[in-house]
């Protein structure tokens, strides 16, 4: 099986979240897209808004943090907000 191209999907596989658990976490953070839409973002079938993309990234990063890691998934505004690196 080939490695997924999408950064978010690669991260999801790495932290071992199911699509539905990722959707719950995304929804919990305030996301308004459906589970199917979020899955579509991960397969590059739909383009998320910056806000939605960042919510998925936040959900993944929080999972990385729970596992003792850093926040490896970049946010869309990281270019502007690079003070803490």
């Amino acid at each position, binding site marked *: 099986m080939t490695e997924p191209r999408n950064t978010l999907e690669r991260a999801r596989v790495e932290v071992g979240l199911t699509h539905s658990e990722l959707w719950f976490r995304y*929804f919990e*953070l*305030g996301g308004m897209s459906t589970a199917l839409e979020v899955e579509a973002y991960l397969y590059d079938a739909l383009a998320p808004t910056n*806000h939605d993309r960042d919510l998925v990234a*936040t959900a993944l990063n*929080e999972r990385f943090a729970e596992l003792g890691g850093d926040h490896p998934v970049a946010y869309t505004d990281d270019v502007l907000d690079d003070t803490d690196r």
Partner: protein
Amino acid sequence: MTTVYSGRQVVVALHGEVDILTAPTFACVLDVLFDAGRRDVVVDLAELDFVDASGLGVLGPMSCRLADGGGILTIRSPSPMVRRILDIAGMGDLIERGRPDPNSATLGPEQHSGDDSKPVTGATKSTDGAVRLPAFPASNEVIDAALRLVTALARATIGGADGVSVSLSRHGQFITVAASDETIAQMDRDQYATGQGPCLSAAAEGHWFHVESLADESRWPQFVPRALEEGIASILSTPLIVSARPVGALNIYSNTDHAFGPLDQELAALFASQASSILAEARTDMTTDEVAQRLRQALTTRQVIANAQGVIMGQQGISADAAYANLRQSAKRTGMNVHEAAKAVLASAFHDDLIGQVRR
């Protein structure tokens, strides 16, 4: 909610209802009290009409946290109905049996139950981590509970909504699984009885039906007069779609005509897709219990984050997205997650208010 300090004890009195919308605020107040070192907390429910799972979800963990810290959470004066809910939830032990601590008698609010003089200690004895939310007997009921949460949220969020319901087709028959009140449930039943109406049309055709002004409506001739009689003036029905198939509808009713604008339609579509997701998720890799549990938690967290976002917007005069980015950055900086950062924002916003009450 009012908070009264009396000696070492603090009495938090609740009014109205504790539900999915008010529970996060209640939870924050308890958190602030805990963080302030308060270990003797009385929650006075004398004025409370109703408590749902989200309220129990606040009381249960807080009583454990207090018990772990050598403290005690006591529930005072629940109505018979609330008492029953607490009993079912395994939280009956938290209910105050006797007088509160005599130290507090002079400063405390009116004492509601004073004739029984058993000591208050021991009330939380058997709760050591064992408080559980009620288990639902059947899977459909769990889904319905989750859908009721969506209904409540839709009604609170959509401006012109006077009532919201979710109807589903089960075994070839339509039933209303969640309705904000009896009139709305009746509106749905009238549609099932006449075989007509925007709800049934949306569920059958898989796209939304918007009745801007019921008085000028010519579709559904048998249903419309019944709705007008009940004072309904506009309706927005959005289909619920699972696996590309319509399975029911989210119905929003208003007593005002032209109540729903484009934004409301968009919100209705979002809530309908959330409801659809619940139904779809329920059929896949999680048990319905897990879905309902997870959804309950997710909705509560969402509300905390949204409240904190609002506080930041108000304090700094910035947009919703900027407030969110702000929250996320401060979470990242402090090593918290966004939910914890949001709670911290709310806690500091409530702090001044609580301090004010201590001094009074």
